[in-house]
Protein backbone atom coordinates (compact mmCIF):
# COMPACT_ATOMS: atom_id res chain seq x y z
CA UNK A 1 0.00 0.00 0.00
CA UNK A 2 2.81 2.37 0.94
CA UNK A 3 6.26 1.81 -0.48
CA UNK A 4 9.27 4.10 0.04
CA UNK A 5 12.32 3.46 -2.09
CA UNK A 6 15.47 5.21 -0.86
CA UNK A 7 13.58 8.47 -0.42
CA UNK A 8 15.28 11.80 0.27
CA UNK A 9 13.53 15.03 1.10
CA UNK A 10 15.56 18.21 1.08
CA UNK A 11 13.78 21.53 1.67
CA UNK A 12 14.82 24.73 -0.06
CA UNK A 13 17.54 26.14 2.17
CA UNK A 14 19.34 22.82 2.46
CA UNK A 15 17.64 21.20 5.46
CA UNK A 16 17.46 17.47 4.79
CA UNK A 17 14.31 16.13 6.47
CA UNK A 18 14.53 12.56 5.18
CA UNK A 19 17.49 10.63 3.81
CA UNK A 20 17.58 7.13 2.36
CA UNK A 21 14.22 6.04 3.77
CA UNK A 22 12.97 2.67 2.50
CA UNK A 23 10.05 0.61 3.82
CA UNK A 24 6.93 -1.16 2.63
CA UNK A 25 3.58 -1.22 4.41
CA UNK A 26 1.32 -3.97 3.07
CA UNK A 27 -2.30 -3.50 2.20
CA UNK A 28 -4.36 -4.03 5.34
CA UNK A 29 -1.39 -3.48 7.65
CA UNK A 30 -1.41 -1.10 10.62
CA UNK A 31 1.82 0.70 11.53
CA UNK A 32 3.02 3.44 13.86
CA UNK A 33 5.64 6.00 13.01
CA UNK A 34 7.58 7.45 15.90
CA UNK A 35 10.55 9.66 16.57
CA UNK A 36 11.47 12.95 18.22
CA UNK A 37 10.15 16.26 16.97
CA UNK A 38 11.97 17.11 13.78
CA UNK A 39 12.87 13.50 13.09
CA UNK A 40 10.92 13.67 9.86
CA UNK A 41 7.54 12.14 10.80
CA UNK A 42 5.52 15.00 9.33
CA UNK A 43 7.68 15.17 6.20
CA UNK A 44 7.11 11.49 5.61
CA UNK A 45 3.32 11.86 5.87
CA UNK A 46 3.44 14.91 3.59
CA UNK A 47 5.17 12.86 0.91
CA UNK A 48 2.40 10.27 1.06
CA UNK A 49 -0.39 12.85 0.69
CA UNK A 50 1.65 14.71 -1.96
CA UNK A 51 1.70 17.88 0.09
CA UNK A 52 5.42 17.71 -0.69
CA UNK A 53 7.30 15.78 -3.35
CA UNK A 54 10.44 13.73 -2.70
CA UNK A 55 13.77 15.19 -3.78
CA UNK A 56 15.20 11.77 -4.61
CA UNK A 57 13.90 8.18 -4.55
CA UNK A 58 10.38 6.99 -5.20
CA UNK A 59 7.12 6.74 -3.27
CA UNK A 60 4.41 4.30 -4.35
CA UNK A 61 0.86 4.48 -3.02
CA UNK A 62 -1.47 1.65 -3.98
CA UNK A 63 0.95 0.78 -6.80
CA UNK A 64 1.02 4.36 -8.11
CA UNK A 65 4.38 6.09 -8.53
CA UNK A 66 3.89 9.53 -6.98
CA UNK A 67 6.90 11.15 -8.61
CA UNK A 68 5.18 10.60 -11.97
CA UNK A 69 1.77 11.84 -10.80
CA UNK A 70 0.73 15.09 -12.47
CA UNK A 71 -0.54 17.91 -10.28
CA UNK A 72 -4.07 17.72 -11.67
CA UNK A 73 -4.30 14.07 -10.58
CA UNK A 74 -3.34 14.83 -6.96
CA UNK A 75 -6.97 15.36 -5.82
CA UNK A 76 -7.87 11.84 -6.98
CA UNK A 77 -4.93 10.35 -5.06
CA UNK A 78 -5.99 12.21 -1.92
CA UNK A 79 -9.49 10.77 -2.17
CA UNK A 80 -7.92 7.34 -1.61
CA UNK A 81 -6.30 8.56 1.62
CA UNK A 82 -8.21 9.51 4.74
CA UNK A 83 -6.17 12.03 6.72
CA UNK A 84 -6.63 12.75 10.43
CA UNK A 85 -4.84 15.85 11.67
CA UNK A 86 -3.54 16.72 15.10
CA UNK A 87 -5.62 19.86 15.12
CA UNK A 88 -9.00 18.58 13.99
CA UNK A 89 -9.09 20.90 10.92
CA UNK A 90 -12.87 21.09 10.83
CA UNK A 91 -14.75 23.88 9.10
CA UNK A 92 -16.12 25.89 12.00
CA UNK A 93 -18.99 27.52 10.12
CA UNK A 94 -20.52 24.19 9.15
CA UNK A 95 -22.31 21.55 11.14
CA UNK A 96 -20.80 18.20 12.06
CA UNK A 97 -22.92 16.59 9.35
CA UNK A 98 -21.71 19.02 6.66
CA UNK A 99 -18.08 18.57 7.73
CA UNK A 100 -18.29 14.80 7.45
CA UNK A 101 -20.23 15.05 4.18
CA UNK A 102 -17.55 17.19 2.51
CA UNK A 103 -15.39 14.36 1.06
CA UNK A 104 -18.52 12.76 -0.43
CA UNK A 105 -19.70 16.03 -1.97
CA UNK A 106 -16.22 16.59 -3.39
CA UNK A 107 -16.29 13.11 -4.91
CA UNK A 108 -19.73 13.83 -6.41
CA UNK A 109 -21.98 11.46 -4.51
CA UNK A 110 -25.73 11.69 -4.80
CA UNK A 111 -27.33 13.53 -1.83
CA UNK A 112 -29.30 10.45 -0.69
CA UNK A 113 -26.10 8.41 -0.67
CA UNK A 114 -24.31 11.23 1.18
CA UNK A 115 -26.86 11.20 4.00
CA UNK A 116 -26.68 7.44 4.40
CA UNK A 117 -22.88 7.30 4.50
CA UNK A 118 -22.46 10.31 6.79
CA UNK A 119 -24.83 8.77 9.33
CA UNK A 120 -22.96 5.46 9.10
CA UNK A 121 -19.62 7.20 9.72
CA UNK A 122 -20.97 9.30 12.60
CA UNK A 123 -22.54 6.20 14.10
CA UNK A 124 -19.17 4.52 13.86
CA UNK A 125 -17.47 7.20 15.97
CA UNK A 126 -20.46 7.46 18.31
CA UNK A 127 -21.58 10.96 17.37
CA UNK A 128 -24.77 10.21 15.49
CA UNK A 129 -26.80 12.41 17.82
CA UNK A 130 -24.50 15.43 17.36
CA UNK A 131 -24.84 15.77 13.59
CA UNK A 132 -26.51 19.19 13.78
CA UNK A 133 -24.01 20.62 16.27
CA UNK A 134 -21.27 23.05 15.28
CA UNK A 135 -17.68 21.87 15.90
CA UNK A 136 -17.00 24.69 18.36
CA UNK A 137 -19.63 23.27 20.77
CA UNK A 138 -17.90 19.87 20.90
CA UNK A 139 -15.18 18.70 23.28
CA UNK A 140 -11.63 18.05 22.00
CA UNK A 141 -12.22 14.29 21.86
CA UNK A 142 -15.50 14.72 20.03
CA UNK A 143 -13.90 17.07 17.51
CA UNK A 144 -11.17 14.52 16.86
CA UNK A 145 -13.81 11.83 16.34
CA UNK A 146 -15.58 14.06 13.81
CA UNK A 147 -12.23 14.40 12.03
CA UNK A 148 -11.92 10.61 11.95
CA UNK A 149 -15.47 10.22 10.66
CA UNK A 150 -14.62 12.66 7.86
CA UNK A 151 -11.45 10.72 7.05
CA UNK A 152 -13.24 7.39 6.71
CA UNK A 153 -16.60 8.46 5.28
CA UNK A 154 -15.71 7.71 1.66
CA UNK A 155 -14.10 4.42 2.73
CA UNK A 156 -10.51 5.07 1.63
CA UNK A 157 -8.14 2.09 1.46
CA UNK A 158 -5.52 4.06 3.42
CA UNK A 159 -5.81 6.05 6.62
CA UNK A 160 -3.08 8.50 7.73
CA UNK A 161 -3.01 10.19 11.10
CA UNK A 162 -0.59 12.84 12.33
CA UNK A 163 -0.48 12.89 16.16
CA UNK A 164 -4.21 12.14 16.38
CA UNK A 165 -4.09 11.95 20.19
CA UNK A 166 -1.74 14.90 20.66
CA UNK A 167 -4.24 17.04 22.55
CA UNK A 168 -6.22 14.31 24.30
CA UNK A 169 -6.03 12.73 27.75
CA UNK A 170 -4.96 9.03 28.02
CA UNK A 171 -8.50 7.67 28.31
CA UNK A 172 -9.70 9.46 25.16
CA UNK A 173 -6.46 8.59 23.36
CA UNK A 174 -7.08 4.89 24.02
CA UNK A 175 -10.57 5.22 22.61
CA UNK A 176 -9.29 6.93 19.45
CA UNK A 177 -6.64 4.25 18.92
CA UNK A 178 -9.37 1.64 19.35
CA UNK A 179 -11.25 3.27 16.50
CA UNK A 180 -8.22 3.09 14.22
CA UNK A 181 -7.73 -0.59 15.08
CA UNK A 182 -11.34 -1.22 14.19
CA UNK A 183 -10.95 0.31 10.76
CA UNK A 184 -7.79 -1.71 10.29
CA UNK A 185 -9.65 -4.88 11.19
CA UNK A 186 -11.99 -4.42 8.21
CA UNK A 187 -9.08 -4.06 5.81
CA UNK A 188 -8.03 -0.39 5.89
CA UNK A 189 -4.27 0.21 5.91
CA UNK A 190 -3.40 2.59 8.73
CA UNK A 191 -0.27 4.66 9.37
CA UNK A 192 -0.19 6.75 12.53
CA UNK A 193 2.56 9.20 13.48
CA UNK A 194 2.77 9.58 17.24
CA UNK A 195 5.25 10.03 20.07
CA UNK A 196 2.92 8.60 22.70
CA UNK A 197 5.04 5.53 23.55
CA UNK A 198 2.95 4.75 26.65
CA UNK A 199 -0.14 4.34 24.57
CA UNK A 200 1.23 2.28 21.67
CA UNK A 201 3.38 0.02 23.80
CA UNK A 202 0.17 -1.64 24.96
CA UNK A 203 -0.81 -2.46 21.37
CA UNK A 204 0.74 -4.96 19.00
CA UNK A 205 1.50 -3.42 15.61
CA UNK A 206 4.42 -2.59 13.40
CA UNK A 207 6.59 0.32 14.54
CA UNK A 208 8.84 2.47 12.35
CA UNK A 209 11.26 4.76 14.17
CA UNK A 210 12.77 7.83 12.54
CA UNK A 211 15.80 9.63 13.87
CA UNK A 212 17.43 12.60 12.20
CA UNK A 213 15.64 11.83 8.95
CA UNK A 214 16.76 8.19 8.81
CA UNK A 215 14.74 5.07 9.45
CA UNK A 216 16.64 3.67 12.42
CA UNK A 217 14.39 0.85 13.54
CA UNK A 218 11.65 -1.31 11.97
CA UNK A 219 10.06 -3.57 14.59
CA UNK A 220 6.97 -4.09 16.78
CA UNK A 221 5.30 -1.74 19.26
CA UNK A 222 5.56 -4.48 21.90
CA UNK A 223 9.34 -3.92 21.96
CA UNK A 224 8.69 -0.51 23.51
CA UNK A 225 7.15 -2.12 26.59
CA UNK A 226 10.22 -4.31 27.03
CA UNK A 227 12.69 -1.45 26.74
CA UNK A 228 10.59 0.83 29.00
Amino acid at each position, binding site marked *: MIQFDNVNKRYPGGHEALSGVSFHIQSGEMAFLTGHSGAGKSSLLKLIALIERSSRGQVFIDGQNLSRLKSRHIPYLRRKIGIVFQSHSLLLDRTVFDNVA*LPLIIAGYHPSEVGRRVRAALDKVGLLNRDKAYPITLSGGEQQRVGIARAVVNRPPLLLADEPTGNLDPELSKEIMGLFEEFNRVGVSVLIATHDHDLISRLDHRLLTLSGGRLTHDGRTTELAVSA
Partner: protein
Amino acid sequence: MKRSARKSRTRPIKPEARGKSQKPRGRINAYFTHHLWVLVSSLGQLWRTPLSTLMTAAVIGIALALPAGLHVLLSNVQQLSSGWEGSAQVSLFIKQDVSEKHIQSLANTLRDWDGVTEVHYISREQALAEFRELSGFGDALDSLTENPLPAVLVLQPTLAQAEPASMSRLLERLRQLDAVDQAQLDMEWVRRLNGIIDVGKRSALLLGTLLALAILLVVGNTIRLTIYARREEIIITKLIGATNAFIRRPFLYTGFWYGLMGAVTAWLLVSGFLGLLRTPVSQLSFLYDSQFRLGGLDFITSLFLLLSGVLLGLAGSWLAVGRHLQAIEPT
Protein backbone atom coordinates in the same frame (compact mmCIF):
# COMPACT_ATOMS: atom_id res chain seq x y z
CA MET B 1 -9.18 -7.45 22.24
CA LYS B 2 -11.93 -5.79 24.28
CA ARG B 3 -14.64 -3.90 22.45
CA SER B 4 -16.95 -1.43 24.10
CA ALA B 5 -20.71 -1.80 23.68
CA ARG B 6 -20.89 1.37 21.61
CA LYS B 7 -18.37 0.16 19.09
CA SER B 8 -19.63 -3.36 18.72
CA ARG B 9 -23.16 -2.44 17.70
CA THR B 10 -22.00 -0.52 14.68
CA ARG B 11 -21.44 -1.79 11.21
CA PRO B 12 -17.87 -2.08 9.97
CA ILE B 13 -16.88 0.25 7.16
CA LYS B 14 -15.20 -1.55 4.34
CA PRO B 15 -12.92 0.11 1.84
CA GLU B 16 -14.34 0.16 -1.64
CA ALA B 17 -13.72 1.76 -4.99
CA ARG B 18 -15.43 5.12 -4.93
CA GLY B 19 -18.63 5.54 -6.89
CA LYS B 20 -18.55 2.21 -8.70
CA SER B 21 -21.89 1.29 -7.20
CA GLN B 22 -23.50 4.43 -8.63
CA LYS B 23 -25.21 4.56 -12.00
CA PRO B 24 -23.88 7.21 -14.43
CA ARG B 25 -27.26 8.94 -14.46
CA GLY B 26 -27.14 9.33 -10.70
CA ARG B 27 -23.71 10.97 -10.94
CA ILE B 28 -24.84 13.51 -13.56
CA ASN B 29 -27.85 14.22 -11.40
CA ALA B 30 -25.55 14.66 -8.41
CA TYR B 31 -23.38 17.03 -10.45
CA PHE B 32 -26.30 19.35 -11.20
CA THR B 33 -27.61 19.07 -7.66
CA HIS B 34 -24.17 20.13 -6.47
CA HIS B 35 -24.09 23.12 -8.82
CA LEU B 36 -27.53 24.19 -7.65
CA TRP B 37 -26.43 23.77 -4.05
CA VAL B 38 -23.32 25.90 -4.60
CA LEU B 39 -25.42 28.52 -6.38
CA VAL B 40 -27.81 28.77 -3.43
CA SER B 41 -25.18 28.49 -0.71
CA SER B 42 -23.00 31.21 -2.26
CA LEU B 43 -26.07 33.46 -2.19
CA GLY B 44 -26.53 32.42 1.45
CA GLN B 45 -22.92 33.43 2.19
CA LEU B 46 -23.57 36.88 0.71
CA TRP B 47 -26.80 37.14 2.67
CA ARG B 48 -24.90 36.64 5.91
CA THR B 49 -22.92 39.86 5.30
CA PRO B 50 -25.72 42.06 3.93
CA LEU B 51 -23.96 45.41 4.34
CA SER B 52 -20.78 44.62 2.42
CA THR B 53 -22.79 42.72 -0.20
CA LEU B 54 -25.08 45.71 -0.68
CA MET B 55 -22.15 48.09 -0.96
CA THR B 56 -20.43 45.97 -3.60
CA ALA B 57 -23.71 45.61 -5.51
CA ALA B 58 -24.24 49.38 -5.28
CA VAL B 59 -20.76 50.16 -6.67
CA ILE B 60 -21.38 47.80 -9.61
CA GLY B 61 -24.89 49.20 -10.00
CA ILE B 62 -23.75 52.81 -10.21
CA ALA B 63 -20.95 51.91 -12.60
CA LEU B 64 -23.45 50.14 -14.87
CA ALA B 65 -26.17 52.77 -14.47
CA LEU B 66 -24.02 55.64 -15.79
CA PRO B 67 -23.46 54.35 -19.34
CA ALA B 68 -26.88 52.66 -19.46
CA GLY B 69 -28.67 55.87 -18.43
CA LEU B 70 -26.68 57.92 -20.91
CA HIS B 71 -27.54 55.44 -23.64
CA VAL B 72 -31.27 55.61 -22.89
CA LEU B 73 -31.27 59.42 -22.83
CA LEU B 74 -29.39 59.65 -26.14
CA SER B 75 -31.75 57.12 -27.71
CA ASN B 76 -34.65 59.33 -26.62
CA VAL B 77 -33.09 62.43 -28.17
CA GLN B 78 -32.41 60.49 -31.35
CA GLN B 79 -36.00 59.30 -31.51
CA LEU B 80 -37.21 62.84 -31.03
CA SER B 81 -34.97 64.23 -33.76
CA SER B 82 -35.85 61.48 -36.22
CA GLY B 83 -39.42 62.81 -36.03
CA TRP B 84 -38.12 66.22 -37.09
CA GLU B 85 -36.06 64.78 -39.87
CA GLY B 86 -39.24 63.44 -41.46
CA SER B 87 -40.52 67.02 -41.67
CA ALA B 88 -37.34 68.23 -43.36
CA GLN B 89 -38.05 70.57 -46.26
CA VAL B 90 -36.05 71.64 -49.26
CA SER B 91 -36.13 75.27 -50.34
CA LEU B 92 -35.50 75.93 -54.03
CA PHE B 93 -34.44 79.50 -54.67
CA ILE B 94 -35.44 80.41 -58.21
CA LYS B 95 -33.31 82.68 -60.40
CA GLN B 96 -34.56 86.28 -60.68
CA ASP B 97 -35.12 86.24 -64.44
CA VAL B 98 -37.44 83.20 -64.51
CA SER B 99 -41.06 84.02 -65.32
CA GLU B 100 -43.96 83.26 -63.01
CA LYS B 101 -45.52 80.96 -65.58
CA HIS B 102 -42.32 78.95 -65.92
CA ILE B 103 -42.13 78.55 -62.15
CA GLN B 104 -45.73 77.27 -62.01
CA SER B 105 -44.99 74.63 -64.65
CA LEU B 106 -41.76 73.67 -62.85
CA ALA B 107 -43.76 73.21 -59.65
CA ASN B 108 -46.14 70.91 -61.50
CA THR B 109 -43.24 68.86 -62.90
CA LEU B 110 -41.68 68.50 -59.47
CA ARG B 111 -44.96 67.26 -58.00
CA ASP B 112 -44.65 64.22 -60.29
CA TRP B 113 -41.11 63.39 -59.14
CA ASP B 114 -40.44 60.33 -57.02
CA GLY B 115 -39.53 61.29 -53.49
CA VAL B 116 -41.54 64.54 -53.51
CA THR B 117 -44.92 64.67 -51.86
CA GLU B 118 -45.74 68.33 -51.95
CA VAL B 119 -44.57 71.53 -53.61
CA HIS B 120 -45.52 74.93 -52.26
CA TYR B 121 -44.91 78.07 -54.29
CA ILE B 122 -43.95 81.32 -52.61
CA SER B 123 -43.85 84.20 -55.10
CA ARG B 124 -41.39 87.09 -54.75
CA GLU B 125 -44.18 89.36 -53.52
CA GLN B 126 -45.33 86.87 -50.90
CA ALA B 127 -41.77 86.40 -49.78
CA LEU B 128 -41.33 90.16 -49.41
CA ALA B 129 -44.57 90.52 -47.47
CA GLU B 130 -43.60 87.68 -45.18
CA PHE B 131 -40.13 89.09 -44.63
CA ARG B 132 -41.52 92.56 -43.95
CA GLU B 133 -43.84 91.12 -41.31
CA LEU B 134 -41.31 88.87 -39.58
CA SER B 135 -38.05 90.80 -39.77
CA GLY B 136 -39.16 94.28 -38.68
CA PHE B 137 -37.04 95.84 -41.43
CA GLY B 138 -40.15 97.27 -43.11
CA ASP B 139 -38.79 100.83 -43.38
CA ALA B 140 -35.51 99.69 -44.82
CA LEU B 141 -37.35 97.61 -47.42
CA ASP B 142 -39.43 100.64 -48.44
CA SER B 143 -36.29 102.42 -49.46
CA LEU B 144 -35.43 99.69 -51.94
CA THR B 145 -36.56 100.27 -55.50
CA GLU B 146 -36.61 96.60 -56.40
CA ASN B 147 -37.67 93.43 -54.56
CA PRO B 148 -34.37 91.69 -53.66
CA LEU B 149 -35.98 88.40 -52.67
CA PRO B 150 -36.14 85.40 -55.00
CA ALA B 151 -39.22 83.26 -55.57
CA VAL B 152 -39.12 80.03 -53.59
CA LEU B 153 -40.47 76.53 -54.16
CA VAL B 154 -40.74 74.61 -50.91
CA LEU B 155 -40.53 70.83 -51.41
CA GLN B 156 -41.72 68.26 -48.95
CA PRO B 157 -39.73 65.07 -49.55
CA THR B 158 -41.25 61.67 -48.80
CA LEU B 159 -40.20 59.90 -45.60
CA ALA B 160 -38.00 57.53 -47.61
CA GLN B 161 -35.90 60.54 -48.62
CA ALA B 162 -35.10 61.35 -44.97
CA GLU B 163 -32.05 59.10 -45.14
CA PRO B 164 -28.94 61.29 -45.73
CA ALA B 165 -27.71 59.49 -48.91
CA SER B 166 -30.97 59.70 -50.86
CA MET B 167 -31.55 63.23 -49.58
CA SER B 168 -28.28 64.41 -51.05
CA ARG B 169 -29.09 62.66 -54.35
CA LEU B 170 -32.40 64.56 -54.48
CA LEU B 171 -30.61 67.83 -53.72
CA GLU B 172 -28.11 67.15 -56.50
CA ARG B 173 -30.88 66.59 -59.05
CA LEU B 174 -32.66 69.78 -58.00
CA ARG B 175 -29.48 71.85 -58.27
CA GLN B 176 -29.06 70.81 -61.91
CA LEU B 177 -32.36 72.37 -62.90
CA ASP B 178 -31.84 75.50 -65.05
CA ALA B 179 -34.29 77.68 -63.20
CA VAL B 180 -32.85 76.89 -59.80
CA ASP B 181 -30.30 79.19 -58.23
CA GLN B 182 -29.86 77.26 -54.97
CA ALA B 183 -31.34 74.16 -53.33
CA GLN B 184 -31.10 74.13 -49.56
CA LEU B 185 -32.05 71.52 -47.01
CA ASP B 186 -33.73 73.40 -44.17
CA MET B 187 -33.06 70.71 -41.63
CA GLU B 188 -29.31 70.68 -41.89
CA TRP B 189 -29.19 71.22 -38.14
CA VAL B 190 -31.01 67.92 -37.54
CA ARG B 191 -28.08 66.15 -39.12
CA ARG B 192 -25.68 68.11 -36.99
CA LEU B 193 -27.70 67.13 -33.95
CA ASN B 194 -27.49 63.51 -35.07
CA GLY B 195 -23.76 63.95 -35.41
CA ILE B 196 -23.61 65.22 -31.84
CA ILE B 197 -25.73 62.29 -30.69
CA ASP B 198 -23.32 59.90 -32.41
CA VAL B 199 -20.44 61.53 -30.57
CA GLY B 200 -22.43 61.16 -27.36
CA LYS B 201 -23.15 57.50 -28.04
CA ARG B 202 -19.51 56.81 -28.74
CA SER B 203 -18.60 58.58 -25.50
CA ALA B 204 -21.16 56.46 -23.65
CA LEU B 205 -19.54 53.34 -25.13
CA LEU B 206 -16.05 54.46 -24.08
CA LEU B 207 -17.30 55.42 -20.64
CA GLY B 208 -19.01 52.03 -20.47
CA THR B 209 -15.76 50.24 -21.34
CA LEU B 210 -13.86 52.11 -18.65
CA LEU B 211 -16.53 51.41 -16.05
CA ALA B 212 -16.64 47.74 -17.11
CA LEU B 213 -12.94 47.59 -16.27
CA ALA B 214 -13.70 49.22 -12.94
CA ILE B 215 -16.33 46.55 -12.24
CA LEU B 216 -13.83 43.80 -13.07
CA LEU B 217 -11.44 45.31 -10.53
CA VAL B 218 -14.12 45.76 -7.86
CA VAL B 219 -15.42 42.19 -8.19
CA GLY B 220 -11.90 40.82 -8.51
CA ASN B 221 -10.77 42.58 -5.36
CA THR B 222 -13.84 41.56 -3.37
CA ILE B 223 -13.41 37.92 -4.40
CA ARG B 224 -9.69 38.12 -3.58
CA LEU B 225 -10.53 39.19 -0.03
CA THR B 226 -13.08 36.37 0.25
CA ILE B 227 -10.48 33.87 -0.92
CA TYR B 228 -8.02 34.99 1.73
CA ALA B 229 -10.68 35.01 4.44
CA ARG B 230 -11.44 31.38 3.57
CA ARG B 231 -7.84 30.30 3.20
CA GLU B 232 -8.07 27.61 5.91
CA GLU B 233 -11.15 26.13 4.35
CA ILE B 234 -9.51 26.00 0.93
CA ILE B 235 -6.48 24.18 2.33
CA ILE B 236 -8.64 21.64 4.16
CA THR B 237 -10.79 20.92 1.12
CA LYS B 238 -7.69 20.53 -1.03
CA LEU B 239 -6.35 17.95 1.44
CA ILE B 240 -9.62 16.05 1.29
CA GLY B 241 -9.21 15.71 -2.47
CA ALA B 242 -11.07 18.68 -3.93
CA THR B 243 -10.14 19.56 -7.50
CA ASN B 244 -9.36 23.16 -8.42
CA ALA B 245 -12.68 23.30 -10.26
CA PHE B 246 -14.53 22.36 -7.08
CA ILE B 247 -12.76 25.05 -5.06
CA ARG B 248 -13.23 27.65 -7.79
CA ARG B 249 -16.98 27.07 -8.10
CA PRO B 250 -18.35 28.91 -5.05
CA PHE B 251 -16.21 31.97 -5.83
CA LEU B 252 -17.39 32.05 -9.43
CA TYR B 253 -21.00 31.84 -8.29
CA THR B 254 -20.33 34.64 -5.80
CA GLY B 255 -19.08 36.75 -8.70
CA PHE B 256 -22.20 35.81 -10.63
CA TRP B 257 -24.43 37.01 -7.79
CA TYR B 258 -22.49 40.28 -7.41
CA GLY B 259 -22.89 40.91 -11.14
CA LEU B 260 -26.59 40.08 -11.12
CA MET B 261 -27.30 42.21 -8.04
CA GLY B 262 -25.28 45.07 -9.55
CA ALA B 263 -27.22 44.84 -12.81
CA VAL B 264 -30.56 44.82 -10.98
CA THR B 265 -29.41 47.84 -8.93
CA ALA B 266 -28.43 49.62 -12.16
CA TRP B 267 -31.80 48.80 -13.71
CA LEU B 268 -33.62 50.19 -10.70
CA LEU B 269 -31.44 53.32 -10.66
CA VAL B 270 -31.96 54.07 -14.37
CA SER B 271 -35.70 53.33 -14.20
CA GLY B 272 -36.01 55.51 -11.12
CA PHE B 273 -34.18 58.42 -12.73
CA LEU B 274 -36.22 58.17 -15.92
CA GLY B 275 -39.36 58.06 -13.80
CA LEU B 276 -38.31 61.27 -12.07
CA LEU B 277 -37.55 62.95 -15.42
CA ARG B 278 -40.79 61.84 -17.09
CA THR B 279 -43.11 64.55 -15.72
CA PRO B 280 -40.84 67.55 -16.38
CA VAL B 281 -40.04 66.23 -19.86
CA SER B 282 -43.73 65.87 -20.64
CA GLN B 283 -44.36 69.41 -19.43
CA LEU B 284 -41.49 70.68 -21.57
CA SER B 285 -42.70 68.90 -24.70
CA PHE B 286 -46.22 70.19 -24.03
CA LEU B 287 -44.79 73.71 -24.15
CA TYR B 288 -43.38 72.86 -27.58
CA ASP B 289 -46.75 71.43 -28.71
CA SER B 290 -45.19 67.98 -28.90
CA GLN B 291 -46.59 64.57 -27.98
CA PHE B 292 -43.10 63.39 -27.01
CA ARG B 293 -42.93 61.06 -24.00
CA LEU B 294 -39.67 59.96 -22.42
CA GLY B 295 -39.08 56.29 -23.24
CA GLY B 296 -37.85 53.93 -20.52
CA LEU B 297 -35.53 50.90 -20.56
CA ASP B 298 -36.77 48.60 -23.30
CA PHE B 299 -36.54 44.80 -23.15
CA ILE B 300 -33.37 44.50 -25.24
CA THR B 301 -31.50 47.15 -23.23
CA SER B 302 -32.61 45.56 -19.95
CA LEU B 303 -31.47 42.14 -21.13
CA PHE B 304 -28.14 43.58 -22.26
CA LEU B 305 -27.72 45.32 -18.91
CA LEU B 306 -28.40 42.09 -16.96
CA LEU B 307 -26.13 40.01 -19.21
CA SER B 308 -23.23 42.44 -19.05
CA GLY B 309 -23.56 42.64 -15.26
CA VAL B 310 -23.50 38.86 -14.89
CA LEU B 311 -20.65 38.42 -17.37
CA LEU B 312 -18.55 41.13 -15.71
CA GLY B 313 -19.16 39.56 -12.29
CA LEU B 314 -18.12 36.15 -13.56
CA ALA B 315 -15.09 37.53 -15.40
CA GLY B 316 -13.95 39.54 -12.37
CA SER B 317 -14.15 36.54 -10.06
CA TRP B 318 -12.49 34.34 -12.68
CA LEU B 319 -9.52 36.71 -12.77
CA ALA B 320 -9.21 36.75 -8.97
CA VAL B 321 -9.63 32.99 -8.65
CA GLY B 322 -7.10 32.29 -11.39
CA ARG B 323 -4.52 34.50 -9.74
CA HIS B 324 -5.01 33.67 -6.08
CA LEU B 325 -6.28 30.08 -5.71
CA GLN B 326 -3.13 28.54 -7.13
CA ALA B 327 -1.10 30.27 -4.46
CA ILE B 328 -2.99 28.54 -1.65
CA GLU B 329 -1.59 25.05 -1.17
CA PRO B 330 -1.40 22.94 1.98
CA THR B 331 2.03 22.92 3.61
